[in-house]
């Protein structure tokens, strides 16, 4: 993991240096005089050899310094920090939707193989992968906001409702904790459409994986044994089959999180969700490279940490696995 993270920083640094424009000119603004730009270039050390620039970048990174955003003129890290909870709340909800929904759908499809549910789950899986999430979001907005007026179409909370006291930054959790029911209702309503839209692709993948691994496990001898000792089918599936069949779901959860994190960039744009994805999209138009690269490195770090958790969780899921 450590060498990979070094690689991540090298790649991020290389991309940032790909910029055809002049970073000093960008940071100084279009009206700055040549002299100012030159002085800034010297100050930023842009004339130094790449290797020295890289080691400087790395040492800043280790101190938690991702640079200063050109657009907001604030440290990128604190910009990302304020937007992280929104993205985290959205991604976590989508992960739960796709995980729980996918497991239920996949298990039902496998247990009732070739039934209506099985065919239905196949259609959902095909649609979930083929339909672009950003388009689905727009269509859901048209139906549930513009036509039916059932769900809000943008933001995290109603315009005239103050956000709950900051504890974790997750509105649902914070308002629940403070007992603020108005804020809770509003933030839940705001969460529904973006989270469902974001989760559909992952839900499709999870349900397919669960279906095929349940089918693998269900014909094993120990399942027959469990049945023949008179356990009810529900118990057999829940306690004996699923425990083993869900290991592939855990394995793919790192990949799923990466896909969801990428998806937030699109979904936050559609639903004006004030998270890191929307921040990075706005940064692109300002050619704000410190912000873009900061988010990119952070995303890679999050995926790596998730994969580490996945590896550790095997120990609890499968007693045969032990890390010496």
């Amino acid at each position, binding site marked *: 993991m450590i060498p*990979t993270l070094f*690689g991540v920083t090298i*790649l*991020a640094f290389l991309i940032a240096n790909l910029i055809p424009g002049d970073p000093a000119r960008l940071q100084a603004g279009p009206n700055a005089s040549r002299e100012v730009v030159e002085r800034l270039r010297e100050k930023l050390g842009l004339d130094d050899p790449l290797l020295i620039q890289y080691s400087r970048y790395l040492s800043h990174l280790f101190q938690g310094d991702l640079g200063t955003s050109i657009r907001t003129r604030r440290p990128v890290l604190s910009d990302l920090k304020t937007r992280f909870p929104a993205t985290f709340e959205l991604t976590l909800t989508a992960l739960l939707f796709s995980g729980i929904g996918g497991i239920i759908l996949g298990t039902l499809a496998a247990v009732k193989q070739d039934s209506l549910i099985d065919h239905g789950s196949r259609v959902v899986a095909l649609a979930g992968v083929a339909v*672009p999430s*950003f*388009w689905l979001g727009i269509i859901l907005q048209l139906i549930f906001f513009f036509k039916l007026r059932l769900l809000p179409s943008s933001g995290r909370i109603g315009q005239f409702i103050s956000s709950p006291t900051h504890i974790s930054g997750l509105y649902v959790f914070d308002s629940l904790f403070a007992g603020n029911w108005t804020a809770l209702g509003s933030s839940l309503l705001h969460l529904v459409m973006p989270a469902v839209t974001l989760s559909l692709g992952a839900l499709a993948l999870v349900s397919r994986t669960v279906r095929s691994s349940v089918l693998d496990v269900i014909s094993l001898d120990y399942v027959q044994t469990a049945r023949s000792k008179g356990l009810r089918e529900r118990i057999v599936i829940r306690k004996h089959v699923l425990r083993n069949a869900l290991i592939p779901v855990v394995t793919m959860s790192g990949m799923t999180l990466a896909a969801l994190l990428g998806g937030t960039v699109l979904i936050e744009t559609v639903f004006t969700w004030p998270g890191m994805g929307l921040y*990075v999209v706005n940064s692109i*138009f300002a050619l704000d490279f410190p912000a873009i690269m900061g988010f990119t490195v952070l*995303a890679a770090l999050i995926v790596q940490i998730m994969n580490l958790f996945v590896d550790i969780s095997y120990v609890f899921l499968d007693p045969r696995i032990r890390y010496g």
Partner: protein
Amino acid sequence: MQIIELKTLRKGLRNPPTLLGIFLILAFVFLAVLAPFIATHDPLAIDVFNRFQPLSKRHLLGTDELGRDVFSRVIYGTRLTLQAGVTIVGIAFVVGTILGAIAGFWGGWTETLIMRTVDVFMSFPALILALAVAAALGPSLIHAVIALSVVWWPWYTRLVRGQILSVKESVYVEAGKALGASSVRLLFRHVLPNCISPIVVLATLDMGYAILTAAGLSFIGVGAQPPSPEWGAMLSTGRSYITTAWWYPTFPGIALSLIVLGFNLLGDGFRDLLDPRWRR
């Protein structure tokens, strides 16, 4: 080099979902090639007196905010979408296979270097890394396609290397070696042809993902720029007009879903033929 036996192929073709996939892809290829004959209007022709016209005989899928014909734009967009998908997957396929073959066949420090690089690329969410590269290159469809090719190859390298490692030890490769075949000949005549089928499956399934991601980049604004009739770019502009003209963002999205569905069905069909585990 025969990827699948004819008999299996015939069996696979009787599978309705696979047939639907083939039909969808052929239909889109047909639309792309014959776009000038099928489109009823010039996709870029502005007609401000006919803005937001609903569906009619004259404008089959209505018109947009500049009076351009949505039907003709969707048809021409097929070209851009297919070109983008084929280019991304093509580059990833070639680069990824070469690097994977080098890593798997020769091993040593080259393998370590290549596979470490693969790990680095794969630790980014694909869309986010592509976004960063495309942003650095500047917004255009070609830059988005380049950015996605940069992001896409590692999957092929990993798959090819794994395949080669498992084929390399086969008896027939040993036999070839014993007969004095050069390593290049061994690789191209004996090892690679026996690894190719999973790579073809991946490439087919990938066409859909590549097309979706390219459209996503255009939607965000780092890909195709207006007035290009690229579907993601059309969606990006069209979503602001959804209450006045629902047809404007709706049809590019349907086209996108159908083309991706086509490639996924075909890829699933290929996989079922080649991997009996998935055949139930």
